[in-house]
Structures are given as C-alpha cells and as structure tokens.
C-alpha cells in the first residue's frame, strides 16, 4: 500500500508544484488523476471544504492547499530543503510564495475571459511580471533559491510554463524577453532543471484543451 498518494489533474500548475517537491526529495508516491468535471467521492471526502486538487494523503491523512502541502512535505522530509533555514530569509521566501499564489490566478483568467475582463487580467499579469523583475530577482541569482531551486521557484511555475501556452492561443503578448531579461534567464534556467523539464504538461495538448475550454466558457457566457 502506498504511504503517499497524490490526487491531481494533469493540467494544474498547483499539482505540479507538489509533484516536483516529492521528486526533488526522492519520495515515492501513487498518483491518482482526477476528472475535475466528475470528481471522485474519495476526493470530496478528503477535501470537503474546497473540493479541489491537489490533495496529498500521507498515511491516510489528507493535506489540502498546495502551499500547505509543500510546507508539510518540506518538514516531514527535510532532505533537499525547499525553504531557507534563517527565519528572516524564510519570511522573505514566504512573502514571494504568497505573492505568486495570489497573482497566478490572473494567468488562468487570461483564457477564461475576453473583452474588458481579459484586459484587466492582462494588466495584472504584466504588473506581476514587473514586480518579479524589479524586486524578486535582484542580485543576479540563477534561481530565487540561489544556486538551486526552492519553493519560490516552484511557486512561480505558472509564469515559466502556463503563461506562454495561454499567450500562444489567445494571441496576447504580455511576457517579452527584452522587457524582462532577468525573468527570461530564470525561465530558461528553471525549465532546464531535470525534475522540472521531465515533468511538465505537453504544450500542444495543453493548448488544445485550454482552447476548447475557452470556447465553451465564452459560449456559455453569451447564451
């Protein structure tokens, strides 16, 4: 019987954050793919409040919310630590993790909306990139975690992978390498880490599914 189970959905950046954390620490786990349009009774039992993925189940006990899960994983399996040990440095890392968590939903809004709503989301995304470029990546660090990735790098994964795919099929242009040189370097570095590179959803598949989802969402809005 697997000690660690992860309930996820192949498109969700929140799920990948947990996958990468488990793989970076070398923790074996059983992965259960959820159909979010038809959630399993087990998922609803493990996450009755939010009914969302990811849910980590460790020795039969569920943990919900991706950041709560990441911090739990980091505490139970301290090898390859994902947060700094110094309390102030850790507080700064947690600040950026919260920032990423609060702002990333605007990336998904880019494909869920159109017209003025989409413009607002695009503006929020652009401002988020400006803040990262101007405040989070100062000091010529390779990663937010220094020479190695940590929880902050993982937290910004939507910027590294999901944003580009969504820009592709919506025709939006928010991230441009020359406007965000530090961020551009970080994205290249982040995506060349083997654990990340080998565990990313396929961009063509993502494009097709999200494009279809967009069409359905916008059609249901106008009807």
């Amino acid at each position, binding site marked *: 019987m697997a000690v660690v189970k992860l309930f996820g959905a192949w498109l969700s950046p929140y799920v990948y954050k947990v996958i990468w954390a488990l793989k970076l620490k070398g923790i074996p786990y059983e992965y259960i793919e959820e159909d979010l349009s038809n959630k399993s009774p087990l998922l609803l039992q493990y996450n009755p409040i939010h009914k969302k993925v990811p849910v980590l189940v460790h020795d039969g006990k569920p943990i919900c919310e991706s950041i709560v899960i990441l911090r739990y994983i980091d*505490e139970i399996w301290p090898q390859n630590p994902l947060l700094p040990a110094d309390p102030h440095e850790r507080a700064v890392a*947690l600040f950026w993790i919260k920032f990423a968590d609060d702002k990333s939903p605007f990336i998904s809004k880019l494909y869920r909306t159109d017209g003025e709503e989409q413009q607002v989301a695009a503006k929020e995304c652009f401002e988020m990139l400006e803040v990262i470029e101007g405040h989070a990546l100062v000091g010529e660090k390779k990663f937010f975690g220094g020479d190695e990735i940590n929880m902050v790098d993982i937290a910004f994964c939507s910027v590294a992978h999901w944003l580009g795919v969504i820009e592709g099929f919506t025709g939006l242009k928010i991230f441009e390498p020359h406007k965000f040189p530090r961020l551009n370097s970080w994205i290249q570095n982040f995506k060349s880490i083997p654990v990340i590179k080998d565990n990313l959803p396929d961009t063509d598949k993502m494009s097709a599914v999200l494009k279809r989802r967009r069409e359905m969402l916008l059609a249901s809005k106008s009807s």
Partner: protein
Amino acid sequence: MAEEVVLLDFWPSPFGMRSRIALAEKGIKYEHKEEDLRNKSALLLQMNPVHKKIPVLIHNGKPVCESLIQVQYIDEVWHDKAPLLPSDPYQKATARFWADYVDKKIYEVGGRVWKTKGEKQATAKKELIETLKLLEKELGDKPYFGGESLGYVDVAFIPFYSWFYALEKCGNFSIEAECPKLIAWAKRCMQKESVAKSLPDQQKVYDFILEMKKHFGIE
C-alpha cells in the same frame, strides 16, 4: 544585542491586530507606529515597496511583510514562550489550512456585507454565516482552535471579531444567533490580555466603517 522591534500599523486593521496579539503573547517590547494610510510614511514605502501596506514588522531593521508570515516569524524567533503553532507537522498543516481559509474568506465576504446592499448584501450575509459555521464546526468542543491554549488559527481569526458589531449593524442580522459557540469562543479569547489589548472597541470600528461608507458614497 538589543532587539529592536517596530510594527507599522493602522488601528482598525484585523491584519495588524494579528501581529499585535502575537507580540503580546510572547511579551515582546516593540515600538508601535500608527500609519495614516492616505499619507503613507517614507518608512512604510521603503519597508514594503511591493504592496505599500500595513502591517509591517521591522526586526533589527529588517522588514517582514504579510500578517500571517509575521505571526509565523514571531513564533519562530521567540520560540521559547507561548508557542502558537503546534510542533507536530500534520497538526501544523491543519492549522495553516484553517488560517489560509480565514484569509481567503472572512475579509472579502465581510467586506461585501458592509459595502453592498439589497440582494448583493443578502448573498454576502449568507456566505459569511456559512463560512463562520464551518469554522464553528472546526472549533468543535475545544476551548480554542489551538486546543487548550491560544494558537495560530485563533490569532488569525479573532481580530475579525472586532468587526462583527459593525457588520451586524450594516447587515441588520445577529451573528451570535447563528453561531453561538463561535461567539463564546471569541469572548473566551477576549479574556486574554494579549487579545483584549490588541483589539479596538467595536463601536469605534462601527464609527470607522460609517465614515468609510460616507467616503465611498455607500448608503
């Protein structure tokens, strides 16, 4: 080395109250600086350039932003007195989950109760009660969310109690009628000096909300 602790704050902010409570629980002496949010100090803008918001905790010149991060920082640095987070990782995860739930729900839904009217307000009131009932269920028969003593979730949540009277007046409803156990918990928390000293008078908060409503042109 002498510890220098400064809290940049704004008296009705439930987020500021969280850090006030945590500092008081640990018996930490600090300098409390009240900010005028219409005229933010150079210090605030320097210490929180990203959000320009309070509260900001400044420890020996280094800023910590975001109230729950401040509470966790205070708990870690001054760990030998009045621990707020449990030591067991699973219980810690549970505490973080519920503090996150309070963060995601109470401020936004509560805000809609005093900022809106008619059907929007009715919806907001219903959502608020549902949220509070869920928290009441999580509390169960424990004296505090933290168990026998005040914990992380209690510190995260109790500040909003100082806003209940204002919300009840604005929404014309009684929170105690719907969630008696929760109000009993709140009154229990208020018996603690760290909480009583950190929360403003509920009438004062109501007067503040009325001023805000006038300012924003909300009837």
